[in-house]
């Protein structure tokens, strides 16, 4: 029998149904893997008691012939940005240390109600602000991948770096992530897994610690495209508690995986091939184009003319929203309080100075500045207008194509040590290919395309029409079959 931790979510679903193993057996196998790979620091808290209790309940249900859904009994990890009832939720910040939500986020609640087993809460960049998982107050996450020519510890990407490392290193069947500017897709690319950012409004944001509310979106991080389809079905759906949640039909996403993309029109945006694009990334992209073409898709050259202004737009809009959202951390209702005998304002200022990390403070200050009197029009209003143009670029493109193919990230994973030294803007450039889809609110997915010369995973990104995750999944399924990506993280090969 295959090692239980090597199963895909779909395989585990089928194996559980056939009685080949129990949810308790699966859960124990993953808890063992989590313990063995503790040094990656992928989890902020683990909850073996909760996990085993849910696994037992799942097995008991199944014994009676009751199954709550395709993920009943499936051990998963939850990014520590989702509020989980009674289980510490920190957003990787000191300011929320010890915070135990009294309620469950809608998305993690749907997974729980569908019988999924929560193994623990995964590490992330503080308040999901980062692209390397090096801003967490609970330490860096290490990727299970190591370059062939260099033993340096690598970043798993960010902000969902703990979820990416946990899936990649086989510490869970799948994990939840959240994506504001690339936080599901870029870490998925860096760790050789599949990550799907659904359409804005597809998954409820209720109970997810807010970063930038007009951009935040939850999604699945999995081993395969099929697994992403299964998990998205369990996470998505209308929620009256989130006013931006969409009242749209929930399709059976797995049925989209027909393997047939004949006649599909695939757009290739020329702006994603700037001068100086890494030759390996360009070659991978060409390979992806060839796979789709071989399967009968029609390749169409398109233009998304405002692409090069997306990052700057994002770095006004996201910090502005963050500065407003993070105003709630005031030391009064939950989390850290620093009181040194001063007045209320001093209590706020000391609490927030101590509780927030460097990158979070930087973004709060930028956001506060661009929203402040005298600068609002020049920065924030201008960014909102450029955002409209970027969204329109996609709307125009989708008049002629069904899906868009691009690289996910401009490079493979970089060393943690190097990540600490780069200036903020260089770090922000990691998201150059993922941010535009976020600003436009359209769904996008990263899937592994191959390995770099250093032996590290590289991802390809498919972007779709609003609420058309199905076409993305269908195209991704074909590419996944063509890519035959079977590379295993260095760590699991017993390497370095």
């Amino acid at each position, binding site marked *: 029998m295959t090692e239980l931790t090597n199963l895909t979510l779909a395989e585990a679903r089928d194996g559980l149904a056939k009685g080949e193993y129990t949810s308790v057996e699966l859960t124990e196998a993953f808890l063992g893997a989590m313990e063995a790979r503790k040094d990656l620091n992928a989890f902020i808290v683990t909850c073996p008691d909760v996990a085993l209790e849910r696994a037992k309940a799942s097995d008991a249900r199944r014994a009676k012939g009751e199954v709550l859904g395709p993920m009943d009994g499936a051990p998963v990890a939850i990014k520590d940005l989702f509020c989980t009832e009674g289980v510490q939720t920190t957003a990787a910040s000191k300011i929320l240390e010890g915070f135990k939500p009294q309620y469950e986020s809608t998305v993690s609640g749907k997974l729980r109600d569908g019988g999924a087993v929560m193994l623990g809460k995964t590490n992330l960049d503080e308040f999901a602000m980062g692209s390397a998982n090096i801003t967490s107050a609970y330490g860096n996450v290490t990727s299970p991948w190591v370059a062939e020519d260099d033993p340096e510890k690598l970043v798993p990407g960010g902000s969902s770096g703990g979820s990416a490392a946990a899936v990649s290193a086989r510490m869970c069947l799948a994990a939840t992530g959240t994506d504001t500017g690339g936080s599901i897709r870029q870490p998925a690319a860096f760790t050789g897994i599949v990550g799907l950012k659904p359409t804005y409004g597809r998954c409820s944001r209720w109970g997810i610690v807010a970063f930038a509310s007009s951009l935040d979106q939850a999604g699945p991080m999995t081993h395969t495209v099929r697994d992403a389809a299964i998990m998205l079905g369990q996470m998505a759906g209308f929620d*009256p508690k989130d006013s931006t949640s969409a009242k749209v039909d929930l399709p059976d996403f797995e049925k989209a995986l027909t393997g047939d993309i004949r006649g599909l029109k695939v757009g290739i945006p020329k702006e994603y091939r700037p001068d100086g694009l890494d030759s390996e990334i360009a070659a991978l992209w060409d390979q992806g184009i060839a796979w789709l073409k071989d399967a009968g898709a029609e390749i169409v050259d398109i233009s998304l003319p405002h692409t090069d202004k997306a990052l700057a737009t994002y770095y006004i809009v996201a910090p502005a929203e963050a500065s407003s959202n993070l105003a709630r951390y005031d030391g009064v209702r939950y989390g850290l309080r620093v009181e040194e005998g001063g007045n209320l304002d001093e209590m706020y200022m000391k609490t927030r100075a101590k509780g927030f990390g460097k990158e979070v403070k930087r973004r709060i200050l930028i956001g*506060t*500045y661009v929203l402040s009197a005298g600068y609002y029009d020049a920065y924030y209003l201008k960014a909102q207008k450029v955002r409209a143009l970027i969204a329109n670029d996609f709307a125009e493109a989708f008049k002629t194509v069904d899906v868009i193919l691009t690289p996910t990230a401009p490079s493979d994973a970089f060393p943690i040590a190097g990540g600490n030294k780069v200036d903020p803007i260089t770090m922000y450039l990691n998201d150059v290919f993922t941010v535009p889809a976020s600003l436009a609110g359209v769904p996008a997915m990263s899937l592994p395309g191959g390995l770099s010369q250093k032996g590290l995973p590289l991802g390809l990104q498919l972007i779709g029409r609003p609420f058309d995750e199905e076409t993305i999944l269908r195209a991704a399924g074909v590419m996944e079959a063509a890519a035959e990506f079977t590379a295993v993280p260095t760590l699991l090969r017993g390497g370095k």
Partner: protein
Amino acid sequence: MSLDKATVRKIGFLARLEIPEEDLEGLAHELNGILGWVEQLAQVDTEGVAPVASVSQMKLFWRDDVVTDGNMPEKALANAPEAVDGYFLVPKVVE
């Protein structure tokens, strides 16, 4: 435009973030770097473009104006750093 130390101190107060005097200079430099970079948006012609706060194409839905939640003071106070008799406790605000 360029941020000076006084402006950083002022934004710090608006954001209720205490910034040690010795950090002001460095922060001003970093923030200026980021602001200088985002100023590239000035090159984009946005004449006649309406700003968007959200790209969601959904209309905000209506619901009945009824109470659907609440009446759980213990839960609301469960994570409070300081609470007394069903209230959050804060430093004195009225002299």
